[in-house]
């Protein structure tokens, strides 16, 4: 008989208890629970203060990461009702073009055009997608894939909205630090808002439609109306991102419908973890900087996204967030095994 050791994984006691806030036994436990959140939130909040210490380039990367994170949250909320989108760029582009149009023709300031573009854009997108909300899975995905390209071609062919030149010289945003804090605030508001929404009974209907639409219909609920609401709500952060970046760049053009705005949010969510909004955030804040570092390698970047996508879909479909969360809440110890 030999004795070998194998590793045993146990949930830390606190994990089971922390479902109920009153069960927290001490400040230490509270700190244990809050530490990862505070570290991430604090890190994001502190980043813009690094201005002067880091290259301004990295502040712009941060801005891009926030943009993609907003699109990724948007993607994930749509997925929660069973709508898989390959075209978040449509939301981004429509938000951008509405704000661009208002700004260049009416000369309204950004703090008016951005909110209008956000709400009107999301409404427009929900209306446009309404007829195809009956489609499921791959069919819905294919339609969303083609829509941003359709808009590009329409603008190109009809030369409306500035045609291939786009609209430039739009009112700029105040300064990058302030801009960063605005987008970070919107990002956190979206994140906490979506989390609250999906944990509510209203959110339960969303997930019900995704998992079992027949039972939701049998409960007397109009699933297409709910899907339309989901598209509208999910559309808000995405159209905001488009409008915001339009003013930041002082320009909107066909590039606002670029595939990057569809592929990066999707990849971020898959890498970070579908179905937990924190996963979408984590994914975006990892992928965007990595992709910037790889910019020197040109289109090789796309190859890297694809590899990341394949690795995560095949190897770790739960995503980084759930994996890390599990590891954090468990500890390993060797136990003797008799053979």
């Amino acid at each position, binding site marked *: 008989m030999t004795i070998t050791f194998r590793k045993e994984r146990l949930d830390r006691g606190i994990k089971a208890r922390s479902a109920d806030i009153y069960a927290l036994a001490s400040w230490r436990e509270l700190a244990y629970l809050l530490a990862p959140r505070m570290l991430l939130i604090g890190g994001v909040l502190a980043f813009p203060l690094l201005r002067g210490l880091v290259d301004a380039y990295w502040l712009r990367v941060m801005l891009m990461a926030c943009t993609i994170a907003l699109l990724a949250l948007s993607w994930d909320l749509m997925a929660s009702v069973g709508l898989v989108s390959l075209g978040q760029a449509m939301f981004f582009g429509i938000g951008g073009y509405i704000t661009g149009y208002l700004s260049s023709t009416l000369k309204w300031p950004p703090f008016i055009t951005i909110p209008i573009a956000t709400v009107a854009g999301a409404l427009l997108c929900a209306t446009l997608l309404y007829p195809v909300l009956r489609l499921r899975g791959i069919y819905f995905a294919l339609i969303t894939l083609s829509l941003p390209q359709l808009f590009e071609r329409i603008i190109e062919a009809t030369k409306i909205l500035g045609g291939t030149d786009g609209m430039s010289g739009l009112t700029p945003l105040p300064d990058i630090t302030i801009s960063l804090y605005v987008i970070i605030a919107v990002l956190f508001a979206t994140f906490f808002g979506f989390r609250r929404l999906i944990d509510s*009974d209203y959110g*339960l209907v969303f997930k019900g439609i995704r998992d*079992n639409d027949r039972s939701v219909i049998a409960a007397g609920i109009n699933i297409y109306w709910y899907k339309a609401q989901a598209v509208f709500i999910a559309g808000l952060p995405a159209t905001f991102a488009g409008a915001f970046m339009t003013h930041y760049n002082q320009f909107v053009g066909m590039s606002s419908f670029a595939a990057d705005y569809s592929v990066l949010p999707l990849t971020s969510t898959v890498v970070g973890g579908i179905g937990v909004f924190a996963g979408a955030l984590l994914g975006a804040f990892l992928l965007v900087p990595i992709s910037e570092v790889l910019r020197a390698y040109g289109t090789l970047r796309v190859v890297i996204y694809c590899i990341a996508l394949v690795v995560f879909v095949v190897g770790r479909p739960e995503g980084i967030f759930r994996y890390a969360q599990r590891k954090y809440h468990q500890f390993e110890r060797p136990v003797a095994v008799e053979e």
Partner: protein
Amino acid sequence: MANPILQVDHLTKRFGGIGAVYRISFDLQPGEALGIIGPNGSGKTTLVNLITGFVKPTAGRVTFRGREITNLPAYARVELGIARSFQMVRPFYNLPAFKNLIIPLFSPRVGKRVGGKSGNRDEVAMHLLEEVGFERDSQVPYKVASSLPHGYLKRLELARCLALEPELLILDELFSGMSMSEVASVLPLIEKIREQGTTIIMVEHRLRELFRIANRAIVLNFGEKIAEGKPEEVIADEQVRKAYLGSEDA
């Protein structure tokens, strides 16, 4: 005679040329309990799907409370007060049993009455589960649906219908897959619902239990109505014995 709550008029459904339901008509008075019987594949579930809007008819009409609903979507019929159970249960498998009732309790039909707070809905859901025989003090209402035995899922299906406070309750083979004791515990509940004035349609193979509820029955065979009447008349019918009971007698 009072106005019928439900009128089914020459309802017909063909699936790619094959007739599943052929020219079926009947009226249902408020408070009545109708049994639908017939061999497997005779079109009972299709008839239920036609009445509830889950399948669109090839021809014919459905009228509920004097209003034609033939082309109304299924969810809107629920809003009018028609609730149905499914023969093949498909709950929200990854939700706890009581959370399965939150979605119907959130629906436009009962949402306002139940109240806006999620706590209210949880409380109503627990009460409904207790009514269909989930032991309140046990862990059963909190278990995820995927871990529950089939009999519990059938009763959860009934609770889902009751959550909608239906005026017309349609039960498609609710008792199949339930144990004798489960049937015995659910039967008085359905009797009580009938006595409270809810109109009931029951598709059921267990005739003894069915006729404790139903005061009238129609018999389907190959999609056609071959008999209609009081339970004892229907059972005595020669054609019915041949089509349906024949196999049991043999």
